[in-house]
Structures are given as C-alpha cells and as structure tokens.
C-alpha cells in the first residue's frame, strides 16, 4: 500500500516536471518559431542560441514589482492566477503517456489514474479554466480586462461545445471513454484516418478555447490592450501565461492520445523507440502546429469567430456523428 502511494507520487512529480519543462521551453519555442517565420533569429543572448532564455525570464518575473490596482478586489485578484494553473495540472492524471514498464519484476502502469471516464474528466476539468479568466477579468475593476474576460468566456464555452461534440465520433468507434482503451484501439490504424473531420474540428476548438491566434479576440492588442490580464503584472501575470501554455501542452497530449495513436510508433520498424518518447514527439508536433498557425494567419473578427462556431462547426460536428453512426452500422452489416 505504502509502495503504491510512493510510486504514484513519484509518477505525478515526474509528469509535473515534464510539463513544467515543456511549458518553459514552449515559451522559448514560440519566440524562436515566431522569429524564424518572420525571418529573424529570436532570442539569442542567454546561452547558446538563447537556450537559457526561459530561466532568465523566470528570474526577471520573480523580481518585478507587483502592481495591485487600488480599485481591485484584492482576494479575487490573488485567487484568479492561482486558479489558472489548476485545470491543466489536474488533467495530467489521465494522460496515457505509455503502456507499462517492468522494474525489478514489478509491472507499473505509466498512466497515473486508469479511470473509465477519462475523457469526461478531461472535458469537465478544462471547463474550469473559464473561472480563472472571468474572475481575473472582473477583479481588476477596469474596463479592458472586463471586456476581455466577457469575450473570452463566451468564446470559451462556445468552443467547449465543439470540443465535446467532436470527441463523440471517437467514443462511438471505440466504445469507451478510457484514454488507454482508445490508444490500444489505434494499434494498427490511427483514428485520424477514420475520423479526419473530428480531428480538424478538435484542433480548431482547442486553439479557439485557448484564446490563441487567429482566435485571440479576448486579448486583441489593437483594441483591448491585453485582454483579461491587462491589470496583472509580475508573477501573477506569469501564472496566467504558464496556465495558457500548460493548457496547450495538455490539449496537444489529449489530441495525441485520441487521434495520433498515443504511444504507438507510426511504422512498425520504428517501434524499438520507447512509447513515452513517441508520445512526447507527437505532442510536441501538435504544439508546434499551434505555434505555426499563430504566426501564419491574421486575426478573425468577433462576429466571424462566433459565426464560425455556431453556424459552421456545430452542424459539421453533428453530421460527423451521424456519418460515424452510419459507418459503424454498414461495417457491421446491420442494415
């Protein structure tokens, strides 16, 4: 019993460490990718090719003065950034990074919590992010954050719906909410081949939910200054920032498990490389895809954004569900 608890805690700490490292170097990757897409070099001064930049940024943010606006609600102002990092960390429990490993004759499953409602848990926990955004926007008692927070909340819940509906096609094929079962189902063929529409709608919804360009209306610099975190500075701002990047990592990881075959190698002769490494490579590939989109497309207008969600993606996801249903029936010869 004690042994199990220790193993669980060690696994959790390792995953938490991997995520923090991923987030720290995600910020560097973002600036490097932005630099090279715009024909610049990006950060270059801290260490070779700017490799120590995240460390320098972290130290800088710790020593910055924290400006708490006199009109703000002090408690909520403190609470919102602390809440912003909670949802992505909670999702870590269900991410199936690998199958299982054997150490000293004991088989240890690599996923922390093998729960049969993993996907529902993911959807439920990520929707809590909206509280951090709304409270953060409201607490500053200032116009820009309030407007940014409102926009962000409306956008978040609209695309939350698309995210949930696009997952249903996968669940219908696999017949389970357990992410480990879903990955095992993809041993021979990745689900992105059977569910291409669901993959595309999932990625659009994930990017829109994270308020990233081209859907970054809540923090559109040209009209709203900085969105819901306009009034935040120093470490509180850093926690919002960290939460956003951690959410990106977590959505990429869930997309990897759902559509890109999780820990399985893309071709059989490459399967000598361990599963967790494949999982991290695929997650990083999707993360890079999000960065690539941000620095390639211009921002949408707010009416276009909501119109795309409610008038285009909504019918498409419903049609995908019906199409998948028909596919399953025809395949089983049920007509």
């Amino acid at each position, binding site marked *: 019993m004690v042994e*199990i*608890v220790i193993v*669980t805690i060690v696994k*959790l700490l390792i995953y938490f460490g991997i995520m923090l490292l991923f987030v720290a170097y995600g910020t560097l990757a973002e600036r490097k990718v932005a630099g090279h897409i715009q024909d610049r070099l990006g950060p270059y001064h801290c260490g070779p090719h700017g490799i120590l930049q995240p460390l320098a940024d972290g130290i800088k*943010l*710790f*020593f910055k*003065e*924290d*400006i*708490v*606006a*006199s*009109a703000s609600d002090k408690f909520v102002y*403190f609470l919102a*950034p*602390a809440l912003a*990092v*909670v949802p992505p*960390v909670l999702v870590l*429990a269900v991410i199936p990074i690998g199958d299982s490993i054997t150490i000293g004759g004991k088989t*240890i*499953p690599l996923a*922390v*919590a093998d729960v049969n409602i993993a996907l529902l848990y993911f959807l439920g926990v990520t929707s809590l992010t909206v509280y951090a955004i709304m409270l953060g926007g409201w607490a*500053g008692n*200032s*116009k*820009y954050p*309030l407007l940014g927070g*409102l926009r962000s909340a409306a956008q978040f*819940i609209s695309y*939350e*719906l698309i995210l949930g*509906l696009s997952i*249903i*096609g996968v*669940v*219908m094929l696999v*017949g389970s*909410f357990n992410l480990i079962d879903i990955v095992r189902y993809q041993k021979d063929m990745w689900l992105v081949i059977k569910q291409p529409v669901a993959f595309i709608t999932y990625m659009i919804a994930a990017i829109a939910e994270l308020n990233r360009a081209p859907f970054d209306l809540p923090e559109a610099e040209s009209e709203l200054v900085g969105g819901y975190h*306009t*009034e935040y500075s*120093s*470490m*509180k701002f*850093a926690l919002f920032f960290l939460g956003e990047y951690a959410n990106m990592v977590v959505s990429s990881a869930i997309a990897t498990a759902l559509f890109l075959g999780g820990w399985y190698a893309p071709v059989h002769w490459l399967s000598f490389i361990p599963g967790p490494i494949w999982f991290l490579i695929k997650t990083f590939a999707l993360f890079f895809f999000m960065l690539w989109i941000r620095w390639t497309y211009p921002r949408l207008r707010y*009416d276009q954004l*909501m*119109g795309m969600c*409610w*008038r285009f993606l*909504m019918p498409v996801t*419903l049609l995908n569900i*019906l199409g998948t*249903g028909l596919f*399953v*029936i025809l395949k089983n010869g*049920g*007509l």
Partner: protein
Amino acid sequence: MYQSISPYIPVLILLVLALAFGVVTLMVAWLVRPSKPYDEKLSPYECGINPLMPAKIRVPIRFFVIILLFLLFDVEAVFMYPWAAMYKKLGIWGFVEMFLFIVILLVGYIYAWAKGALEWE
C-alpha cells in the same frame, strides 16, 4: 494490485500540488520583489488618462443569449455521451433514435438561427 487504491487519490494529490504551486510561487515572489507604490501607478489602466466612468459596465444581451444556447446544446451533448459509449451494442435502433433526437434539436437550432440569435451586429 495497483487498482487497490482509488484512481481518484492521484487527482486529489494533483489538486493539492497545483494549488500549492500557485500559492508558493506567489508567496516567494512577494518576498523577493520590490514595492514602491504611488497613486498614479495604482490607478486602473486606461491608456494613460484618469479613468472616466465606473468600470462595471452593463453586459450586452448577446452574451446572455450565447450562454442560454450553450446550456441547451451542452445538455444535448451530455445525452450523447452515454449513447456514444454504448453505440455498438444498440445497433440500428440506437442510430434511428439519435437521428430523431438530432432532427428535433435541429428544429430548435434553425428557429434560433432564423430569430437572429446567432448574429453579432
């Protein structure tokens, strides 16, 4: 053997870890950072001028409509989850039932669209 503890214990540990991470980081930053406040620095940000009106504005009704639509369609999605997990066992009648369910919802969806609930002027 590893199933002998509830799978939700790790979730509880993670919740404590996440909250502790946020609070400890803010505490450490509070200990080491400088603090030199004055009135102008602490006024709400409004592009450099003094704030004109109270910040708590009226919320446009559009947002309320979107929340209502979200509630309706989210309940629909909640009905779909157990159906999707059991779909292979339900067979053809499961498909027919969900088809009718979606058609009924589509009527409401088209009504909302025709009434202009999906427009942003």
